[in-house]
């Protein structure tokens, strides 16, 4: 686009030039031989979304709506009830918290396969008789610390040990499950009497919703705020999008990477508290295959597996799609085989829908 300023000025003191962008779009450009198209070129479409990752998640919402319609048609009595919605949210809460952490890691260009195993380990550690003897608050702190600690190890191996994230977190997956089995002697550890506060997260309701749904909501909001409103979030996009550029801009990429995995581990620790609340147990079998579910939710939500782009809202929508699918299947009494087939198809359709909406909105 052409500038309207005089040649000499341009050459000698561009900084002095105070011309605003509006002027450029003005028809004054006309004289220089470019009419309408000029403004068009320069300004782009009005309402062009600032960040691609934050394109309104129309496709996902559409997919969810479609699922809701299916629910209303096939199981009208049970689907749209308050208690079913609560149940869906409660189901989504555990993986949901993990998905928030996974979104950070993936936007930051990494991947965390260890989430389910770390959650299991945290749940086991927090429910050993030794830990339980200190009461519920210590149990919660323990779960969160174990999660964050495992995350730190992941981050350290990746950032300073220079292991590929896939391998480092796969090793953590395997080792954390082993450790969880060892600690629990492969037994399911019940939350003991006196520590029911933990279980009450699931049984106590506030305004009709179990407390753990509030925990979930809190984590999502906190995640959103950190990702979109803080320097940490901004750096996460930079580190994932172009680590070299981030480094040359003075960001300590390695340290940031460590924090990203620690954050993911922290989320696993919180998720461990929720799963303890829901199942009343800590167990080395908790969280099996969560890694696939969490990553799938993140990707369906529009985050690039290569990093640098994505959003929390998308991930949570992606996760809700999965949760609603399972809910619908069971409400309809489908057997597992048919569930699996249908789930595969729905994933494909949801993503295609999303793509279509992205395309038409650009």
């Amino acid at each position, binding site marked *: 686009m052409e500038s309207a300023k005089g040649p000499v000025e341009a050459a000698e003191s561009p900084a002095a030039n105070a011309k605003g962008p509006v002027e450029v779009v003005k028809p004054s450009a006309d004289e220089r031989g470019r009419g309408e198209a000029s403004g068009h070129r320069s300004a782009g479409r009005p309402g062009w979304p600032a960040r691609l990752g934050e394109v309104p998640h129309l496709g996902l919402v559409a997919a969810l709506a479609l699922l809701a319609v299916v629910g209303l048609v096939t*199981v009208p*009595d*049970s689907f749209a*009830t308050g*208690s*079913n919605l609560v*149940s869906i949210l*409660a*189901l989504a809460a555990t993986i949901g918290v993990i998905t928030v952490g996974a979104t950070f890691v993936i936007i930051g260009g990494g991947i965390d396969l260890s989430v389910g195993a770390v959650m299991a380990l945290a749940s086991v550690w927090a429910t050993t008789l030794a830990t339980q003897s200190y009461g519920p608050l210590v149990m919660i702190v323990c779960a969160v610390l174990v999660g964050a600690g495992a995350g730190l190890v992941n981050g350290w191996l990746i950032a300073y040990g220079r292991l590929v994230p896939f391998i480092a977190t796969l090793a953590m997956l395997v080792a954390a499950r082993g450790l969880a*089995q060892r600690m629990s*002697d*492969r*037994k*399911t550890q*019940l939350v003991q009497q006196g520590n029911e506060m933990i*279980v009450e997260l*699931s*049984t106590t309701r506030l305004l009709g919703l*179990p407390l753990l749904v509030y925990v979930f909501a809190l984590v999502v909001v906190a995640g959103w705020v950190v990702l979109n409103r803080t320097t940490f979030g901004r750096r996460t996009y930079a580190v994932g999008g172009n680590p070299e550029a981030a480094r040359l801009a003075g960001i300590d990429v390695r340290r940031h990477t460590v924090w990203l995995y620690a954050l993911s581990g922290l989320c696993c620790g919180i998720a461990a508290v929720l*799963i303890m609340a*829901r*199942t*009343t*147990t800590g*167990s*080395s*079998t*908790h*969280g*099996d295959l969560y890694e696939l579910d969490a990553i799938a939710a993140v990707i369906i939500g529009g985050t690039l597996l290569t990093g640098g782009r994505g959003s929390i809202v998308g991930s949570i929508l992606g996760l809700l799609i999965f949760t609603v699918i*399972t*809910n619908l299947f*069971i*409400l*309809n*009494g489908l*057997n*597992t085989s048919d569930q699996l087939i249908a789930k595969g198809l729905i994933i494909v359709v949801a993503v295609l829908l999303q793509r279509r909406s992205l395309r038409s909105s650009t």
Partner: protein
Amino acid sequence: TGNTPDAPAAASAPAPAATGGNDAPGDKVVIGFSAPAADHGWIAAIAKNAEAAAKQYTDVEFKPVEPTNDINAQISAVESLIAAKVAALVILPNDGQQLNQIARQASDAGIPVINLDRVFPDKLSYRTWIGGDNYGMGVAAGHYIGKTLKDKGVADPVILEIQGIATLPLTQDRSKGFEDALKTYGFTVTAKQDAQFTVESGTKVTSNLLQAHKKIDAIWNHDDDQGIGVLAAVKEAGRSEFFMVGGAGSANAMREIQADSGVLKATVTYSPTMAASAVKLARLIAQGKGMSDLLENQVPQSITLASETITKDNVAKYLPLGFES
């Protein structure tokens, strides 16, 4: 198959049989052991019971191999035991059919195979099978539920079934037994879902099922390990209009039954003590001994444990046998 609650649990008693001098040290034998990965209480109890039984004997060297849920790896594990020329093999296969060939190889190589729990389809593949009665378990649960509902005079009851791993033949046997027994009362299963034998999946499946069915009369849950999750979901939903029957007989389930504070009113046994018995049988077979209580000179070809129904009334007697999940 018995669901007589007061039948003594002889075959599942872990205490050493004190008869006939069978426990007197004999030839030194190496007994190989292979089972699925101990990722839940029942299987863990299997591994533990086997090892504990072996430890009782100075003439037994116990040689367990990596428990795994990968068929391919279990085949390799058994191969390594064959190569090590053990005197007898105790195998709880991930899948009897898939492991059949390798068990057959062992038998052909002259190593007696004691087949534990999940059965090999080919009788040439094993010397003796010992296991629970899966069909009988279903029958026991079906009778308990059927009779209770009939007594209450419930017509057209909503009966749910929460299975374990759906792809296991034993699950299918259990469901069949359940269905057959219910039929005798004119009842059918309203809905069933499978829950992977894990606590978490028990919670997940149940909380959805409870949404699907606003009024339930009875639930049979195949497995007491996953049952902890099932009960948690029930508690979370605050539901209590129905009663529930468990499966396998974990100590935890028995305590719940004893306390009688929740929906769990009974469980039907499928005792992991069978592993201890299997090791004992393996020793006898390897040493060429018979079972001294029996008249025959040889260990029998198959032993089926009875599935017993544990309720509040008889739970005290069973509690010591329950395994910790």
